């Protein structure tokens, strides 16, 4: 029943938050629910159950994504309480409500064993986050939310078609229950191959749009660029992980049905193309939030690349879901602090931040090395594993192209971030005053930074076990 609790409680709290008139009460509710959620997810690690007749159940892959989402949400909730003191987002009361509904929807995606229910959760995340993007009453904000709504609604509609196509692939006679993952996998040999192929193609396009895989990523820079930083963080860290989970579910079924030769080249191609697009647009990018959006395109590309490679690549992919989520939220929150200080996310106007906001600036430097996959941070381990996978699965040119692209991206991001941190302020008259940074705005990213560092040095055995089993369900193995 705990599974149902994780979905229903945030939803009910979202409704309650709208009824609360006092901002302080809403903040308290947000923090309480976020903490309860994390505790409940912790219990799930020890005691797994199922709800709604097996529709909701935390398998290893789902539990990993759920834990990631829960931790990220807790950090963001804590940050949000500090943030709303400085900047009033447009939504007012709806701001906290939307955040809580988002938590409910992402939990539903992570826990769903029923693929149509997973779709309902995925669509709900789109709808819950859209009002949060529209945070300022201006044209740019409107344009961003409109692009996001239209493109991701179409994407998610294609994903629904994928769900229906998968249901069609199931034989009408027989004991297997419709669209339940365990039944789909155990009865994979009876699935109709034609419908299954069609289903996977639409799932790749649909969930790929939600993840922001190139060439379906066009909404991403605009949305991340205009959304408040903490919303951008939630999208880049939690929402994309859920979308990847949706795609991984379809891959699980297709791989179980023996469609390796169809699925893997598609995933590898999508991954490499995303890396290429990210590399092309990160070089010379003038806005730090838009740069983070392209970096997200890059990491989504790495995830599907690893999934497509299998073996050590799939293991790296699962591990990278966690690393990428933690790094992205940390970076968005650190950037958010600088944006709060300077009032812009255009790089030319935010130079020399080391003097005025030293903690956030150092976080940004740590984030630079983490996000580009440098040791000793977590993403190094997962990216290394993905590249190892490419070599071992006899794709040397894939490994080479990936390393080249990652190098280009490293140069692009390093130039931008080092400019922000160390560069000379261009004008002296409107220089940002140096004030002590608020603890509520830096503790969260600091915690995430230490987690990313820890994952690069040591992965706790229970976590390692869960990652290994999740990778095995995706045709992978620990290196």
């Amino acid at each position, binding site marked *: 029943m705990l599974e149902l609790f994780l979905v229903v409680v945030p939803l009910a709290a979202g409704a309650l938050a709208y009824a609360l008139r006092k901002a302080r009460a809403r903040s308290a509710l947000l923090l309480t629910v976020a903490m309860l959620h994390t505790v409940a997810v912790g219990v799930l690690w020890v005691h797994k159950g199922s709800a709604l007749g097996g529709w909701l159940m935390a398998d290893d892959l789902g539990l990993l994504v759920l834990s990631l989402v829960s931790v990220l949400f807790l950090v963001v909730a804590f940050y949000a309480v500090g943030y709303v003191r400085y900047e009033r987002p447009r939504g007012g009361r709806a701001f906290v409500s939307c955040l809580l509904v988002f938590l409910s929807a992402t939990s539903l995606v992570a826990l769903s064993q029923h693929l149509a229910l997973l779709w309902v959760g995925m669509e709900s995340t789109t*709808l819950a986050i859209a009002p949060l993007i*529209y945070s300022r*009453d201006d044209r740019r904000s409107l344009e961003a939310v*409109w692009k996001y709504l239209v493109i991701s609604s179409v994407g998610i509609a294609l994903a*629904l*078609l994928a769900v229906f196509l998968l249901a069609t692939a199931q034989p009408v006679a027989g004991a297997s229950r419709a669209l339940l993952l365990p039944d789909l996998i155990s009865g994979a040999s009876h699935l109709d191959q034609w419908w299954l192929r069609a289903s996977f193609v639409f799932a790749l396009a649909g969930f790929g749009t939600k993840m922001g895989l190139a060439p379906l990523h066009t909404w991403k820079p605009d949305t991340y660029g*205009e959304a408040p930083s903490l919303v951008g963080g939630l999208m880049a860290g939690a929402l994309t992980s859920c979308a990847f989970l949706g795609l991984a579910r379809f891959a699980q079924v297709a791989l179980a049905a023996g469609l390796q030769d169809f699925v893997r080249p598609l995933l590898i191609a999508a991954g490499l193309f995303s890396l290429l697009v990210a590399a092309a647009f990160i070089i010379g990018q003038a806005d730090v939030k838009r740069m983070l959006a392209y970096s997200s395109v890059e990491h989504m590309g790495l995830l599907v690349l690893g999934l497509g490679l299998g073996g050590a690549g799939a293991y790296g992919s699962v591990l990278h879901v966690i690393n990428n989520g933690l790094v992205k939220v940390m970076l968005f929150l650190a950037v958010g602090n600088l944006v709060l200080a300077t009032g812009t996310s255009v790089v030319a106007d935010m130079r020399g931040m080391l003097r005025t906001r030293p903690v956030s600036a150092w976080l940004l430097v740590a984030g630079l090395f983490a996000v580009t996959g440098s040791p000793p941070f977590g993403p190094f381990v997962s990216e290394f594993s993905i590249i190892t996978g490419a070599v071992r699965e006899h794709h040397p040119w894939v490994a080479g192209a990936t390393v080249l692209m990652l190098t280009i991206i490293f140069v692009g991001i390093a130039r931008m971030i080092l400019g922000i941190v160390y560069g000379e302020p261009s004008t002296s008259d409107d220089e940002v005053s140096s004030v002590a940074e608020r603890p509520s705005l830096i503790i969260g990213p600091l915690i995430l930074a230490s987690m990313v560092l820890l994952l690069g040095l040591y992965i706790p055995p229970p976590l390692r076990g869960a990652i290994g089993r999740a990778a095995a369900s995706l045709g992978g193995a620990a290196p």
Partner: protein
Amino acid sequence: MTHSTLQLLLLLIVLTDFAVLGSSRLSACIRWIALQGAVLGILPLVTEGGLTIHVVALAIGTIFVKAFVLPGFLRWAIREAAIRREVEPLVGYMGSMLLGAAALGAAFAVTSTMPESARGSLVVPVALVTVMIGMVILITRAKAVIQVVGYMMLENGIYIFGLTLARRVPFLVEAGVLLDVFVGVFIMGIVVFHINREFDSISASKLTELRES
């Protein structure tokens, strides 16, 4: 009898697809998409399987949402935001019609490659052509309101496809899908309203401030 009724309703759906594609006035487009929603609601009642509470509830819900609430809401947005009444297509009506005809051909071509079991029925090609024409409208129309209509059509097409497996998807899921579409169009409508206030006319083609320079 039910079989010929089903064929008739499917034909009506295709006609409404093309009617939206060819209409030059927003109000006409909304009227046609409302009609399509109503036909869509009746469809599950005539597909095989008989009248269960589940099917009837779904039909009533669909008709209520897709034929009355959402079109009514779009009309409200047009009136309140004083949107100009023309569709203003990026591709002319003749060109749109040709694209629609191409979509129809493609839908039947794809259907003919499908496994045996699906080839006989008209449901699958009609679903596909509705999805494709919905896409055409989304891409070739500049106005945000009409893009919402295109999105509704796209969803309708997928819903028709879902009918082929009406017995396999449980009620909870169908209701969830319907609710999501409802909320989705509602939020789009609100954004459309704000866009108009901000930009004076609801034309998504004017949304060009965010670009890679």
